[in-house]
């Protein structure tokens, strides 16, 4: 299966700096063979160093300790898909990785966490940083396989909504009086 997560909406595409530019990202099914060594070899544009750098970068930008690398790899794969369809995008992303290493005076990944963060801080206004960030916002938080981790239950209509499934089950604060919050009819 080809990855389909990034069905970009053309209307916002040309801004390059808006989160809404990734208006439609699908659930991003994790069909990758990961962390098997074949992962980066499957990518069309990024070499192993670039893909690992981007993987590290996405994790540092949106750190969630309990989320496995394979989910961040979904974001990198999506970036690779974009890059494979657009030479400008490919150049921006590959140059961005090279620039990270340049600022690190070596392999950015090999720096200490603090130093990696300091380098990212230096580039946070660049188009490269924004491209990666936008992709993370949908690639991570619109990935249905991660919703359970965040406690988000997704579509509810087919389950009859929450009228009988805990819409008012909060029990650690006093219940409002019925004048303010009537019982369900």
């Amino acid at each position, binding site marked *: 299966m080809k990855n389909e997560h990034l069905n970009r909406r053309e209307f916002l595409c040309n801004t390059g700096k808006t989160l809404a530019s990734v*208006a439609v990202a699908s659930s991003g099914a994790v069909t990758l063979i990961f962390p098997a060594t074949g992962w980066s070899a499957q990518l069309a544009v990024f070499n192993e160093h670039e893909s690992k750098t981007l993987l590290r970068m996405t994790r540092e930008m949106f750190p969630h300790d309990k989320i496995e690398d394979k989910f961040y790899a979904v974001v990198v794969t999506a970036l690779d898909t974009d890059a494979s369809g657009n030479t400008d995008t490919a150049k921006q992303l590959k140059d961005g990785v090279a620039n990270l290493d340049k600022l690190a005076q070596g392999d950015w990944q090999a720096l200490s966490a603090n130093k990696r963060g300091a380098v990212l801080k230096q580039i946070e206004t660049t188009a490269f940083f924004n491209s990666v960030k936008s992709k993370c916002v949908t690639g991570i*938080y619109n990935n249905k396989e991660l919703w359970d981790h965040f406690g988000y239950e997704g579509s*509810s209509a087919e389950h009859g909504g929450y009228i009988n499934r805990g819409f008012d089950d909060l029990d650690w604060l006093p219940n409002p009086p019925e004048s303010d919050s009537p019982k369900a009819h």
Partner: protein
Amino acid sequence: MAKIDFNDNSAVVIIGSGAGGGTLANELCQKGIKVILLEAGKHHSIADFVNDEWPSFSQLAWLDKRTTSGDWRVAKDFPNLPAWICKTVGGTTTHWAGASLRIQDHEFRAETHYGKIDDANLIDWPLTLKDLEPYYAKAEDKMGVTRTNGIPGLPGNNNFKVMHAGAKKLGYKEVHTGRMAINSRPRNGRAACQQIGFCFQGCKSGAKWSTLYTEIPAAEATGNLELRSESHVLQVKHDAEGSVSGVLYADKDGNQQLQKARIVCVAGNSIESPRLLLNSASTMYPDGLANSSGQVGRNYMRHTTGSVYATFEKPVYMYRGTTMAGIIADENQHDTSRGFAGGYEMETLSLGLPFMAAFLDPGASGKKFSDALEDYDHMAGMWIVGEDMPQEKNRVTLHTTEKDQHGQPVPNVHFDDHKNDIAMRNHAYKQGTLVYEAAGAKTVWETPPYPSTHNLGTNRMSTKASDGVCNGFGQTHDIKNLFISDGSQFTTGAAENPTLTIVTLAIRQADYIAEQMGKKNI
């Protein structure tokens, strides 16, 4: 459904099928008047709606190109998405949250009550609350607004419980589950709310009022309505005398059609409506239709919004149940001791995880941000809805170079916050924070305004023709058979969610149009 010929010039053509256009269509059809309802978007059904934020956005939102300018943060974060409104049959009534509040008496007379405010283009409405009261009553009955007409309030969800507890500790008095056009019990053929939690994505139970499955089918049942979806109006045409005579639109295949009309009512929401009048410029009307005042497109208002989200030690699951589940109304008065004119409402709001990531702090990254999302299921949230100041420079204009898919100039939406807007927002952020801290918040986020959902004022009503575009019935000052039928006719924004007032004005406008037709004045 009626079938009306392109050359038939006896019908009323209404552009837009949302709260204004959809309601007006039904009201006119009930009186035996023939109506052609043109809607740019597709005709979806409840069955099409999806409980999934990005796909739903793609299905319902108006995504034609727009540009932005000004100092509002939306221009930076969402430069091509100034507004979150809909292009679909039913318009933004598919997406709205359902809050149905009457504008207060003093708010209709903003200039009188607030006095002169620098850089604000304030005037009084050419009507009063008393004029609208009988129509508000009709609208509330039609829509089934809770806490009116003997309809009980909705049950509060977890998000409301948090807001209520904090608000009461803080001493707020008027805190309840609101006046909502969402059925708390079955009514008028519509089901009761199932607390599904995707109000913004189209209500799957039909408990929330939308013209899609109320006004429009009721109008069709009269045999007087012809609904044409995927019909995007490009220009309103006029005759040699200067009266409007029809509309030019692109049909679903992109072919241009000319539909003749006796009367044209523009209800495309406050960006498209002025854009259409401006795009209709002609030799006789070089500045656009109904624009002798120069006010078409000006005084764009979008409410002084913002959100406050807070995380707590224990779970909330704020997204379960109605999106707008309750209100704090204590700050909606005009009380200048707070440092600003006008007032604001605080209303619960929730976003699903995908949209929370996009909107909590647009452009943010890093540990603080991801920690907040890590606590997503422990989060509560509210939206601030306050009166913003009309300013002439805040306006919808035609882009000088960018064109849409039909070759028409795209709209640019310029907005600068007024200092009154900023003072109000800061006050509301502070009060919202205090509410959540009183309920035990761990962290609090002051979230900037989303792309605008309450777009108002760009074809405003005025007593004097030099101050605005239309009179108190939405009839344009310049062209007597051209009407404004949406929120763009609002003279000022008031603190209340606008849909109920848009519906109210549409009911009243239908009476006026029928009367004027009867007298052969139009």
